[in-house]
């Protein structure tokens, strides 16, 4: 019963009074900067004191054993969870506490560990969903319903843009297939394409190489490099495959049990004895 009353209280606080955070921006030379970011689930510290500093155009790795809190950090950065401690900044702008769609508008896009596509929509439409919030594709409901010229113009432009994106990922031929009918590797690529369509400043990739064969992985490494160059993108990724990480990332942060174990240059961090211990055990 007491718990029920607590529920009522929190409902009133969050839904009715809408207590909001005060957000102060900072001067920052980093694309992403987190300050003592952390979250607690009913006593369990899923992530704490995470301080990331990611420079522009960098590929940054977030690694750690299972349950280390990597995906939790992603969820914090995209607003899936609201952090209980700390703040994070995108190009100096404080995004802590914003809802997910607003964070995405500000410039953080992500993919998911277990692929989350819009399965009953065609490939090209998946990407067009991502494009919808671009200022150049603005078209309100009224214009869409009554099919004013702008609707057709925007739709055409969006489709072209989507095709262009798909071409980069070699998915153009599949564009009219349902997303769920794609093979696994292509589904991964489509997810990245959709994230890129939202025109992010920072791209978060959650285990992009999971479940891929070596050939596909190699292909993926190239794709990510192309993304960085072509879109001038900053990328933060989670990965287990050490070869993949060391071949791709400029810098990494190693997490274990929700805390930072090591960070900095990829080679140095991977050779850190703490890290080796955490991975090999003992």
């Amino acid at each position, binding site marked *: 019963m007491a718990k029920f009353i607590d529920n009522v209280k929190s*409902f009133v606080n969050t839904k009715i009074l809408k207590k909001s955070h005060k957000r102060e921006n900072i001067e920052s030379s980093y694309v992403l900067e987190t300050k003592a970011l952390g979250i607690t689930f009913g006593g369990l510290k899923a992530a704490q004191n995470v301080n990331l500093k990611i420079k522009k155009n960098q590929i940054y790795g977030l690694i750690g054993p299972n349950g280390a809190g990597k995906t939790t950090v992603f969820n914090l950065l995209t607003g899936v969870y609201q952090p209980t401690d700390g703040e994070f900044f995108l190009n100096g702008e404080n995004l802590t506490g914003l809802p997910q769609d607003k964070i995405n508008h500000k410039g953080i896009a992500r993919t998911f560990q277990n692929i989350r596509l819009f399965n009953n929509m065609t490939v090209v439409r998946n990407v067009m969903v991502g494009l919808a919030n671009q200022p150049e594709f603005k078209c309100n409901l009224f214009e869409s319903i009554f099919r004013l010229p702008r609707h057709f113009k925007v739709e055409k432009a969006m489709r072209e843009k989507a095709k262009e994106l798909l071409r980069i990922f070699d998915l153009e031929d599949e564009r009219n297939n349902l997303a769920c009918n794609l093979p696994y590797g292509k589904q991964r690529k489509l997810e990245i394409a959709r994230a890129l369509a939202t025109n992010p400043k920072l791209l978060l990739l959650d285990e992009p190489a999971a479940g891929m064969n070596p050939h596909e992985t190699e292909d993926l490494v190239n794709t990510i490099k192309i993304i960085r160059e072509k879109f001038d993108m900053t990328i933060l990724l989670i990965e287990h495959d050490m070869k993949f990480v060391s071949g791709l990332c400029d810098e990494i942060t190693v997490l274990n049990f929700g805390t930072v174990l090591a960070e900095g240059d990829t080679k140095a961090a991977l050779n850190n004895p703490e890290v080796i211990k955490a991975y090999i055990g003992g």
Partner: protein
Amino acid sequence: MKFLETLINGFSIGGIYAMIALGYTMVYGIAKMLNFAHGDIIMVGAYVIILFLPINPVVSIIAAIVLCALLGITIEKIAYKPLRGASPLAVLITAIGVSYLLQSLAQIIFGPNPKSNNLFEKLFPKFLESHRGGIIAIGSFNIKLSTIITLACVALVMIGLTLFVKRTKIGRAMVAVSEDKGAAQLMGINVNKIIMITFAIGSALAALASTLMMLDGQTVNFTMGSLPGIKAFTAAVIGGIGSIPGAMLGGIVLGLIECFAQMAGLGDYAVAIEFSILIIVLLVKPTGILGKKRREKV
């Protein structure tokens, strides 16, 4: 005094709702379907009792439980099993179809006349001689024997179900199927058998509910099931659908709301009050009072 009386009345009606909701929630928790035909199984149970009542009241109750369990299994085999793995909406629509089917069959077989019953009189003839109307007077206030039986039955069934689910092999298999059908199958559980058993139990509980309704004096006709069906759905959701104690709690809450609305002279608005409370409960606690949250991992 009036308050106490209303409270007792609320418990007596709520107990019946709770019994229906228990069966409903069992089927929901495992077969993952809104069984709109659950209420109509109650109706079938009631007719079976009426049919067998001239022989012996106890026999009629047992016959109702057995036949309803068999009916539940049959319906599951014919109407729901072919749709396993299909969209829940498709199953929902077949359940509605089954409900229509049972109702029209009942009208064809038993006719449209409402049938009252004397199950209570037949079960407790001696008691009725000493207590007019089956009422026990404690001091200045009266309680019906049927109310006591209802509450005792519901409590027993709830405890029994809880123990069954927690302690027995089949019960634990049920929880496993409920959590994850695929994984349960891999662990060697015969999912089809478990779902069949669930339907048998759920339908047997429906028969038990019809017994309680008839002890309370309920008139039997072929549409008697649709109202309890929707009430059970409401009760199960208030309590947290899938939760066995929640179903009982939800049923009793519903009964209390109804009776207190009546007491306050708002009987005409009973439905609006009931459902408004439901909405408020769900807004505060989106999974019902005792419902479990299922987290979606991102």
